[in-house]
């Protein structure tokens, strides 16, 4: 029982970081119809940013979180710069080309990481609470896992409010539904795109920073999470914020629980769930066939 609870919490924590990557992907995909491989680059920025800040020493939680926010902000700015310098020029071409543009940026950043840090794994900073746990209803939970779950919920609510309750959100929804009509009605679509790209870079950079506690940082750090995020977005439904959250948490928890019984096939279950979801709910978990609301 204790083992199962432990795995459940680990799944929730994994799912929360996966949600940050997936929501970044989902925003650019839902609003701009852009499958953003540069998210792999933003994960690298987040991970190596934390390594550059703290090395492999030990660091207090407050300082670590401040560092993650700083790194995430810088990643957002770099992401915005990439959009202006390169990706923006590709929107008029078929969707394959902006996608490959972002993949090229991923390769460039991964190449820089290989050049400057080498291919080997870098030990990351020890955060004071990473291995501490607390008691709750007689069971012990990892404090860092609880923190990740909390961060996931805060960001879910923040993004939902931003999209549904603010003027920027209105522009975002209009652009997602009909780019040309939004443009005609006076929405600066280019700026909405820039905002979405930079925001997704910020979120993914944040995830990259937070994940240094759980994972080793190396140049292929970005790749695996990137593909898992694709699966989450497919299952949750493109552009659906709540759907993405449910899919990220649900899939990660399922995988963590399967690990208890069959460690070899746990990750395969993750991808099998994708196939099942596509057959059962091709428009995403929260959508019925035919509804086309974008966000």
């Amino acid at each position, binding site marked *: 029982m204790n083992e199962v609870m432990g795995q459940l919490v680990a799944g929730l924590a994994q799912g929360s970081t996966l949600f940050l990557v997936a929501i970044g992907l989902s925003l650019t*995909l839902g609003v701009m*119809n852009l*499958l953003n491989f540069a998210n792999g680059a933003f994960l690298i920025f987040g991970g190596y940013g934390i390594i550059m800040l703290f090395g492999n020493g030990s660091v207090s939680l407050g300082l670590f979180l401040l560092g993650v926010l700083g790194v995430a902000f810088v990643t957002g700015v770099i992401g915005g710069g990439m959009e202006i310098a*390169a990706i923006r*020029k*590709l929107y*008029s*071409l*078929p*969707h*394959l*080309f902006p*996608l*490959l*543009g972002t*993949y*090229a*940026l*991923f*390769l*460039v*950043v*991964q*190449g*820089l990481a*290989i*050049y400057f840090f080498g291919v080997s794994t870098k030990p990351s900073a020890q955060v004071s609470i990473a291995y501490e746990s607390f008691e709750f209803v007689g069971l012990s939970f990892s404090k860092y896992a609880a923190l990740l779950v909390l961060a996931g919920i805060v960001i879910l609510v923040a993004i939902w409010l931003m999209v549904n309750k603010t003027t920027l959100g209105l522009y975002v929804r209009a652009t997602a539904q009909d780019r040309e009509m939004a443009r005609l009605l006076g929405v600066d679509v280019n700026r909405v795109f820039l905002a979405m790209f930079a925001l997704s870079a910020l979120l993914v950079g944040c995830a990259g920073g937070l994940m240094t506690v759980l994972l080793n940082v190396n*140049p292929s750090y970005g*790749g695996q999470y990137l*593909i898992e995020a*694709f*699966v989450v*977005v*497919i299952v949750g439904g*493109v552009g659906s914020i709540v759907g993405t959250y449910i899919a990220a948490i649900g899939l990660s928890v399922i995988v963590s629980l399967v690990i208890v019984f069959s*460690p*070899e*096939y*746990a*990750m*395969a279950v*993750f*991808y*099998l769930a*994708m*196939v099942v979801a*596509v*057959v059962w709910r*091709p428009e995403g978990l929260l959508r019925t066939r035919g509804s086309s609301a974008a966000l």
Partner: protein
Amino acid sequence: MHKSPARTGQVQSTAAFDSRSWTARGKLAIGTGSVLLMLLLPQLLSAGTTFIAQLIMVQIVFALGTNSLIGHSGISSFGQAAFYGVGAYVAVAAAGLGLPVPLALIASTLAAGVAGVLVGWLLIRVKGIAVAMLTLGIAQGMYVLLARSQFMGGDNGINIVVHGWFRPYTASFASSIMILSLGAIFVAWLLFRAPFGLALRAVRDDPLRAAALGIDVKRYRRNVFAQAACICGFAGGLLAYTVGAVNPKVFYFETSIVVVFVAVIGGLYYFWGPVLGSIVYFVANEIFNHIAPAIWTFFSGILLLVVVLLAPMGLMSLARRLPRYRKMVSE
């Protein structure tokens, strides 16, 4: 009613990329010349260089199969590694049962085709860019399944046994692999030139108009998906024989993307684009591996970025009248 798309002028114009100036005799000479070259190369080159030439030939077949989807049919499949990998693993399994090389390769092709039909059945449920994500997810799923299990050698992979043909890893074996690749290239070329290929390009350029002309868009897309899977599976079988082993890395997402990469740098809308792209990419890769392996990833990213930004129709387009094609793409 006649449904042949070749009857309509509109569809014909999408095939303007073919070079019609070559005579039949010229084509025959080039074909014979390339077969002779494949026979000669392994005799002239060192074993290491021959191996690279073989790999490039196999990659060309894989890239042509993939490009028949992304370039010529407008289906953004980013998971062709799934079929490449199925082909490679089935070749190993068939060879393990004692089948000679040609039969093992046929088994690879057919198994990948069956996988293509199954995946195609899933794909009709999603649209546009979700196709890229779903196919990528399927290939990556195959990777984690094999890499973390004990099936067929698990993460370490498994060696292939060569039965009933030339002695493996001799010059004549290398020539045979390369001539088989040439055969696959020829088949891909015939399919590209056939009315079926013309119809697919019509669907890519304007699905609604193609449907109005009497082309069954869904059926054509399903068919080309299975056909591309067969070509990629055949390439996978050739890969297994070339390398002498196969491991789960063949399914990894980078395998799928590199093949799109080479098609794009060569020129997506041209038949010969992936051929040129594969040669440029893998020769450059080899050179970098010798002089500066640490900066290859960076360089390949810059190469892709420059091509996508400055010549989205690839290196082939530089040799032809660029503005016309650029306008065609941006529409």
